[in-house]
């Protein structure tokens, strides 16, 4: 006899970020299908942007996402600069380096944030607390450069809004040096821990073919063995002026996704260091007055993957059309194959592993499809996931 039950995840969640709604169909412990309902975050930004002038749009698109709040304005100004003749041709050298530094600092803070939340899902609250503790100095660096912890307001068509002062550079370098032992500790605590390994290896696997079929981008794709990275494939900012590696893993499970993100932290730290050393003196803004008619695209590697902006201008001070494709939109769909076939206790983790600004698990209720009777709620589900880890801990 089949016991097909539905688990609604979301849309509300006390511990996480945005409202999103997942409907898991389960038979016993096994997830057999999954529905993804989005739209709880829709604020009509593309339409709003067509009613604001180019300088205001950079601030508006920053408010698409609070975690990638440098990637979206960066992709937008790249698109606008594409109309003007390309970033490399008009933006001063120093501004390119500052943009790269902000972009990489944001990657560090985003990856640490994800690491903490993943730790929480498997019952390692210590990882959560420590990851967020070491995230604070990164936010302090932002506050030092931009004056705000989360929305930076640095991007501007033709340059950046604020300079990095010379006296700040040694402080920034020291903060990066202090961060390195913390990242080492995480690598030891997460990648060498037998329990975490047993829990994450083989959990929510996305094969290379599936990853290509579902158009995944960013760390999700790189964990499945796809060697893509916009920073290398179509360099912007100062990425072609510094040495760094693209991290690629083969297995496509949650452990591979974690490994990619932890190893990317090292690359990011190294990129920022090189940028701080190589940064030339000079102007930070090209003082662009008008945007000529034309079309442009901007691609940026956000912490979650490729972020794409398309801007069409008709010579006025407003974009006629502004199209945005965010990375999570592609990655969330891949849950359809990654979570199906796994158990319920793995589902929360698998859904979280693509880092989709995901949320919601605590509002999870298991309903019997026939009777609509409540079987378990969100806390039970997280408990299930944590119990599975506890079981592995026992010899």
């Amino acid at each position, binding site marked *: 006899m089949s016991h097909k039950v539905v688990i609604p995840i979301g*849309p*509300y*969640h*006390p*511990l*996480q*970020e*945005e*409202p999103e709604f997942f409907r898991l169909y389960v038979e016993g412990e096994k997830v057999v299908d999954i529905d993804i309902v989005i*739209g*709880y*975050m*829709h*604020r*009509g*930004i593309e*339409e*709003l942007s067509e*009613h604001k002038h180019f300088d205001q749009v950079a*601030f*508006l698109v920053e*408010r*698409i*996402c*609070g*975690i990638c*709040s440098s990637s979206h304005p960066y992709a937008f100004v790249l698109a606008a600069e594409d109309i003007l003749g390309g970033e490399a041709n008009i933006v001063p050298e120093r501004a390119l380096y500052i943009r790269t530094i902000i972009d990489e600092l944001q990657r560090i803070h985003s990856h640490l*944030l994800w690491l*903490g939340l993943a730790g929480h899902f498997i019952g390692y609250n210590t990882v*959560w*607390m*420590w990851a*967020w*503790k070491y995230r*604070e100095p990164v936010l302090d660096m932002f506050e030092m450069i931009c004056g705000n*912890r*989360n*929305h930076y307001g640095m991007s501007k068509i033709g340059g950046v809004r604020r300079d990095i002062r010379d006296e700040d550079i040694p402080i920034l370098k020291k903060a990066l040096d202090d961060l390195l032992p913390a990242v080492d500790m995480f690598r030891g605590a997460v990648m060498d821990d037998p329990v975490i390994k047993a829990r994450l290896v083989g959990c929510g696997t996305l094969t290379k073919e599936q990853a290509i079929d579902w158009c995944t981008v960013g760390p999700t794709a790189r964990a499945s063995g796809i060697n893509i990275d916009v920073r290398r494939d179509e360099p912007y900012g100062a990425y072609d002026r510094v040495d760094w590696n693209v991290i690629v893993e083969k297995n496509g499970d949650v452990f591979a996704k974690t490994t990619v993100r932890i190893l990317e932290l090292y690359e990011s730290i190294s990129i920022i260091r090189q940028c701080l050393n190589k940064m030339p003196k000079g102007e930070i803004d090209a003082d662009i007055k008008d945007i000529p008619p034309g079309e442009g695209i901007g691609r940026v590697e956000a912490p979650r993957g490729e972020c794409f902006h398309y801007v069409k201008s008709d010579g006025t001070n407003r974009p006629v059309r502004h199209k945005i494709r965010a990375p999570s939109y592609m990655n969330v769909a891949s849950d359809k194959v990654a979570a199906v076939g796994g158990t319920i206790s793995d589902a929360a983790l698998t859904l979280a592993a693509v880092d989709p*600004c995901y*949320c919601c698990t*605590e*509002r999870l209720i298991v309903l019997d499809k026939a009777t609509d009777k409540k079987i378990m*709620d*969100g*806390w039970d589900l997280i408990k299930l996931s944590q119990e599975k880890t506890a079981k592995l801990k026992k010899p």
Partner: protein
Amino acid sequence: MDLKLKALTKSIWVFHAATSPCNNCDIETLDLLTPRHDIERLGIVLVGSVRHADALLVTGVPNYKTKERLKKLYSQAPKPCLVVAIGGCACGRIIFQESYNSPCAVDEIIPVDVYIPGCPPKPEAITAGLVKLIKKVRGEK
């Protein structure tokens, strides 16, 4: 003062309702729980269900989908329930005022007790706002 309200100010349990924010206010709210700010030392705990909560932390500008849910959440909360609007969007919709999918501000759906402006407000500002809320309930100046 109402006995219920007096008891409530000892340790406020909060539920976090995100009505289409950009994540930042939510992250800063979560940041309060982590070692640097550690708001649990003041007895403020994030709970998993609105039925356990004394206060509702609302972030973001409500859209047509989340508006109904926010109303529902407030009706499910045990009364008296305090409502804290965190961030510029929840306080007054700032940049999203002209959006076609933003019908009204939070205080047009449910009564708001404390407004904490900022984009996003710093964790220190949120803590200060919650302290002001406690003082307001107790009737202190």
